[in-house]
């Protein structure tokens, strides 16, 4: 089994060799949004631009729908996903709230952080989640 010692940390997607390989093309698409000319091309026709990358259909649909948690599950990395949030001129808390489970609005996520953030207690292991 290709396992890591952090695999039992719940709700966490580490960019390692497994996600690197699964998410290579979607992350390279996201990375391309660092360039103004690529942002313009994407804006002209999002689907057509995505089709220039050898991504899976699931990855393309997740991008088009802005389903960020699914994007991570499909190999995307959050630092790369920021490029898409920025492209949409959205604050990152929109993405954070959408990924959180249960999901939250921008305001709800801000409120959680304003109250000191998500507690580490109960969030260290998958076992804690299953027993909680």
């Amino acid at each position, binding site marked *: 089994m290709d396992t890591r010692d952090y695999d039992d940390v719940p709700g966490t997607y580490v960019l390692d060799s497994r996600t690197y390989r699964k998410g290579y093309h979607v992350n390279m698409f996201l990375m391309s949004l660092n360039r103004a000319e690529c942002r313009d091309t994407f804006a002209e026709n999002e689907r057509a631009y995505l089709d220039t990358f050898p991504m899976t259909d699931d990855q393309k649909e997740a991008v088009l729908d802005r389903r960020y*948690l699914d994007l991570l599950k499909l190999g995307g990395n959050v630092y790369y996903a920021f*490029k898409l949030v920025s492209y949409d001129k959205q604050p990152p808390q929109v993405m954070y709230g959408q990924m959180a489970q249960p999901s939250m609005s921008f305001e709800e996520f801000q409120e959680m952080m304003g109250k000191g*953030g998500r507690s*580490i207690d109960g969030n260290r292991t998958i076992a804690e989640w299953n027993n909680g």
Partner: protein
Amino acid sequence: MADLIAGMGTSHVPGVGAAMDNGKTDEAYWKPLFDGLKPLRAWHASNVPDVNIIVFNDHATSYSLDGYSTFTIGVGDHFKPADEGWGPRKVPNMKGHPELAWHIVEEVMAEDFDLAVAASLDLDHGFTVPLSIAYDQPDVWPTSVIPVCVNVIQHPLPTALRCFRLGQAIGRAVASFPQDMSVAIWGTGGLSHQLGGERVGVVNPEFDQMFMDNLTQDPMANTKLSHAEFIREAGCEGVEMIMWNVMRGALNTEVKEIYRFYHIPVSATAYGAIILENK
């Protein structure tokens, strides 16, 4: 000879730069942070070195899955703020210090640290936000800089101990630089935060305070933390804290804590800053 006078640790949350760039620092959300930075900025105003060595990480900006070195040092004579997807920050270009940078390369390579050497390296918020935190909004940055980029986003990462030892080697290199000048070193990133996944927003003040306490009381304790411990206890992106170990390793065994500030939240991050002077 060059004299390493101090180290700073600070988070490098992009929102801090955006708040400054967009004139929001007096808003209720941001005021507690910028109030807490006042003593830090006062220290910087009266302790301006010739060069700041700034340890940071690139966030899929100049590096990507196509190539990401574990450690990179910038030897250019100037550096530009990067376009990270929303256009470059409107902050001044940064002046490099090729002479000291190359001296560090030569000295630490002789100690078996294999650095990638970059002349052209556009610098993202991981680098420019700490400058803004320290120096506010000047027309020209008051010091030269040497970027030291650490891979903390694409595993496998350098260990916490490796980062500390690199810092020790950098400290020795600075001490042997044959020019009278003052140098400081900054470790950036952290503290606890997680930006992705269902657990997004997790923070751990106890862990963060322990980490900052260790900087003066038991710095080697911070070198014994595994990446899995950082991820579990401080969030997936909290592992950035290993970059503070480079800073701490460069300083003397005995340091004096000048100022510490801790504040939640800054975006989804526990903000931490500390200033340590060499004894």
